[in-house]
């Protein structure tokens, strides 16, 4: 299945999806060393976003979150790509400086289509789309 998206940070990635239905603050919610979700209120608490396509609705919280994405990248614990329903400035800036592909505004109701474990390809160039196997 192919879904059109808006490109915020360019690149290509493919891998397994990890899906959260709640907004994410990288500052506080995510362990910057391992990529494991440490926010107990999260629906993916204890799971890792490292090496996966991280799909969630939007961001929240402190602007320090941009630096956490950079930290994750340096620690080789970053997600391969991020897909949001509607992204925010903190995640956008973090993804750009950490060179993580980021897309948002999917043309369909993505959160009810994609599940953790699905294989996803993210095409983020001048045009953007994702493919779900």
């Amino acid at each position, binding site marked *: 299945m192919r879904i059109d998206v808006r490109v915020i940070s360019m690149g290509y990635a493919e891998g397994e999806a990890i899906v959260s239905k709640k907004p994410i603050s990288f500052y506080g919610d995510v362990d910057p060393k391992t990529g494991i979700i440490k926010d107990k209120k999260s629906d993916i608490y204890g799971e890792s976003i490292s090496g996966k396509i991280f799909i969630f609705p939007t961001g929240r919280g402190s*602007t*320090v979150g941009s*630096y956490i994405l950079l930290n994750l990248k340096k620690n080789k614990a970053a997600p391969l790509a991020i897909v949001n329903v509607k992204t925010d400035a903190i995640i*956008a800036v973090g993804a750009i400086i950490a060179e993580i592909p980021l897309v948002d505004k999917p043309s369909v109701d993505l959160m009810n289509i994609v599940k953790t474990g699905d294989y996803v390809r993210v095409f983020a160039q001048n045009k953007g789309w994702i493919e779900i196997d």
Partner: protein
Amino acid sequence: MFLSKDEEKLLESDNYTIRKCMEILVAIGKIFDADRLIEIKSAQVSGISYDNIGDAGVEWLESLNAKVKVPTLCNPAGMDLIRWREMGIDEDFYEKQMRVINALKELGVSMSLTCTPYYLVETNYGDHLAWAESSAIVYANSVIGARTNRESGITALASAIIGKTPNYGLHIKENRAPDVRVIVDKEIDPAIAGYETGRIVEDKIPFVEFKKKPNSDGLKAFGAALAASGGSPMFHAKEITPEWEDFEIPSEKIVIDGLKQENCEPDLIAIGCPHLSKEELKVVYDLLSKMGRVKRTLWIFTSRNIVQENKELVKKIESLGAKVFSDTCMVVSPATRRFECVMTNSGKALEYLPKTKNVRAIFGNLRECIEVATK
């Protein structure tokens, strides 16, 4: 968002820093539906204290290679660059903080190290800016009538390097209208009025009616506390601020009562959040000279620029036992952590000290702070 041919070329620049900065501005423009980029008069960058940005931040700043296009100032660091030992800062922190400072200097950022850039860079009504310090954003928008969104450290730096910002939010007049009417009783200190208003209005723009009109230092204290406890980018004050008559007065009305606070015995009295103006420094000296020598730790924070312009005054204040530090403040320096109870005249510090430094904080107006310090 529309980009001119020259702007499009920057996205293909050979210089990685310029390319990244442009990508950041385009992304922000997309997210907020900006129609184009507009030129800015100045930029002001936050996230200077090593305590806030950590190793990843230092390394990222060091990886950049470009020069800022407009006058660019920066927020306080985690220590006084000269008297850091007196603050109890260790060598390791000093070295990391200096790496941040040197990386910013390489980019052409002037080492103002203050949260009050409006005392240093000429800022006029209608100017477009990209500022990141929350209290300075409120002051510029509200008291001066200049226009800036609430930038992050990174977006402000990207704007400084490109010389532009996406045109959205508070750059557009109609988005500057007030959302809620706030009545402040005459007894309440402006810092506390701001603190209480912020908690209620959150990130909305209040239209404030002060029964006793504050001076510009009072408006500064009000705005800093408003932005800290709530997140508002600006306010209008009836018969005071330049845009107060430009919009309809909101119908929703709230009344601000005083603050109810628990007590603790202060082991630090901290003044200067935001950094003191020349006038405030004089008031501090007048109070101190009446009340006598300082008997507890009294730290006063202002910009190095203000210290250099008022050397005699600073010497007199210090001869009475207070310390006047520059380049830093109680909110961004790790030095505040070793105290247990801080008394401050700042609504902003009252909000952040317990959250970020794990100390108790109580409010006293300037006179009460000096009284307790000399008792």
